[in-house]
């Protein structure tokens, strides 16, 4: 096995067989690395359940080959809690009691992280633009809107605290 594809996932360097270069990252994560937090929903970039961050941007890992992530930091839901923003989002999700079945929620939270990294205080229109690539069949959208706003407020509060302290 030729280990000449190296990815950085949740801050750790991972060496992979070069033959996985063309495999969508989702299946590298799920079937090779055992990181099953990113979910398979459609295989076509339509539902967002497979969302991961590359740097600060959201990618549909079911559509993006592993080689596209070489040299870039990848964050999955399993690593997102190490980032203060990710932790705030997860906490807000629990606080607002967003989840139902929970299957789409890792992707929703990753999408929300990308949204808040680009725009820490999104208005309703920005939330719709940032969050409408992710489907939820349980219909948790109203609470997702609320949780994104709560995390944004918590972020603003912690920034203010950071500056004053």
């Amino acid at each position, binding site marked *: 096995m030729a280990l000449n594809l190296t990815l950085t996932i949740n801050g750790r360097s991972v060496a992979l067989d070069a033959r996985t270069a063309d495999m969508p990252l989702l299946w590298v994560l799920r079937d090779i690395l055992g990181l099953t937090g990113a979910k*398979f929903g459609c295989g076509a970039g339509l539902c967002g359940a497979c969302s991961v961050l590359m740097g600060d941007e959201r990618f549909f890992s079911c559509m993006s080959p592993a080689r596209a992530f070489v040299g870039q930091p990848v964050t999955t839901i399993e690593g997102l809690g190490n980032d203060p923003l990710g932790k705030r989002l997860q906490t807000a999700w629990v606080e607002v009691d967003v989840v139902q*079945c*929970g299957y*789409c929620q890792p992707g929703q939270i990753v999408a929300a992280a990308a949204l808040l990294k680009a725009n820490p205080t999104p208005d309703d229109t920005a939330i719709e633009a940032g*969050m409408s690539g992710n489907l939820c*069949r349980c219909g948790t959208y109203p609470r997702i809107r609320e949780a994104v706003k709560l995390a944004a407020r918590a972020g603003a509060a912690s920034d203010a605290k950071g500056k004053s302290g």
Partner: protein
Amino acid sequence: MSAGDDLSLSRRNVLSGSAVLGLSFFVPLGRLAAAPSSAASLANTFLTVTATGVELALPKTEMGQSILTTLAMLVAEELGVAPDQVKVVIPKGDAKRFAPISQGTGGSSSVRQMYKPLRQAAANARAALINAAAAQWGATPDRLDLINGMVVEGGSGRRLPVRALLAAASAAPAPVDPPLRKARDFKVIGKPTKRIDSWEKVTGATVFGIDVRLPGMKVATLIQCPMFGGTLGEVDESAALATPGVVQIVRGRDVLFVVADNYFTALQGYIAANPRWEAPSTPATQSQILAELRQALTKPGFEAKKQGDLAAARRAMASEHRATYHQPFLAHAAMEPGSCTVHVTAAGCEIWSGSQVPSQAREDAAKALGLPAEKVTFHNCQMGGGFGRRLETDMVVRAVELGRQVSYPVKLVWSREEDMAHDMYRPAYLDEIWAALDASGKPVGWEHRIVGSSILARLLGNAFKGVDGDATEGAVQIPYGVGAHRVTFQQAESAVPTSWWRGVGGLRSAFVVESFIDELAHKAGQDPLAYRLSLTSNPRIRAVLERAGQESGWGAKLPEGHGRGIAVLELWGTVMAVVVEARVVNDEITVPKVTGVVDCGLAINPLSVAAQVEGGVIFGLSAALFGEVTINDGRVEQSNFHDYRVLRLNEAPTISTHIISSVEDPGGMGEPPCAVAAPALANAVFAATGKRLRSLPLSLQEA
């Protein structure tokens, strides 16, 4: 009784509210038994109390509806702990373990079925601990309570921890159904309570069926003949096997399995295999299916209800109204596609999957393998949505069909396209209602004729007598007095397999009954809410309708192109109304706002009741606006979320939920909000445009 009858009856019980409620009063709770060795625990059918906490074996399955939290709350109330101190385990599929309570989860039955038995089981354990403390102190039990792991005596303040009482409590004769805590003392029930399983779900830690990984496991995908009734033809087997990482190709009569080291490679193998299919002799088409439904509507049908004298109503009527409604096949499209992991060995079979019917899944797998059920272990997993799809066991049976032919554990994962092409669909239906009206426009006679596939006919076999009691639910009992009332059902099957879908028969009935009553209101020149109120004296229904009017601002002026519609139902022990506001611009329908009012009896967890309202309404609106599976050349035409659209966040309305305060026994909440969404929207579109849409999904382009 044959195995088939068992299956039918167990599913019928799952879906029949009355049967379920009837059972719950007679359920034996099991003698409180000493733990075999140390008496370090107190256990009954559902609960184990130990020195360190409470464990609840969940007799129902979690698929998003928060049943895990809701049932933990019932136990927590009686045992004097917080819900998150109850450890909930999802038990293996086992038809005997909770009998006569089924492990099946559907038909909004879980809370109704478990409300009393679970509380009683916990109250029994509480009484056993209190009695043990009373004996030790020489005190009277009625001054003692169990709070936060301690038995406490009122007045003296004496206390003993649970761990000090377990041995005596489990050795003593079991208390016989001591009283439950009184509603006025509730500390948990009725209080808004956050889910106890959120953190695992927001960190990606929850293991859904599709996430199961076993040592030495391979991953497979399947392709079933895209044409219903067709078979597998030629396959480029050597090309598939030449794909690096492809392990094995397994052929079935109407299916090809490709096994590989991972899912992506299995898909590559499938592409290389390029399977060809033999068409059935007469492939199903949409026009033919619709023609057969229309033909069935000309038949007399089987009578599901006959009340009063329709002929007399016809003679006496001042006018009449008739309308026909069409509803399409629907896919479930749960976020987690089909998935099941199996390991078949000489010793038996182990299965990991999410199922709404884990004991049935175990038995169906055993039957497919020719094994006794005891040789099959079904590990039930959390589901990425159920909605009725996982009341069927075809995913499990397909996995077993593959698993028995390979020597390793194998996870079978369906592509989204496969999930869409081989769902078991909500039936397509035609309904016709005719009403005889008096001079004031009120109905004095009502005939409702329903045609479509019968799910119960498939399950009941020879026991089916022509009326599908599920399909006619919500048509036989309606919220209104309509004079003479007749309902018929006529079965009409096609090659398209059908099954339960969120809202079940009441979903179909609500669209038709609530659209038609709206038509009658407008025909009578009356406000649709006032007209509904004029037809019912039922206090629960009236209260819900009136509250819906107040909370929604019914009657207040709306912008041009907007309209409000209302719908109500009484089913599954619950009365639910929604007011939907529709906005129509260039024939495009959107939904800015929904107001939900529910009387579900005692709302055990108002937070999860509201979640069911929000989620159910959105599920129902997705179907009302977009949901349609069509058939051409024997196959389903839709393949993924681009052509089987569901609501996205930017399309979701703001939803407010108002819960009528009640101490009556709790009703079901999974189905009602979904069932009232479509008729309320259709009525809102009429209010906005004057166009009556009688076919789902709602489309003004075709109107």
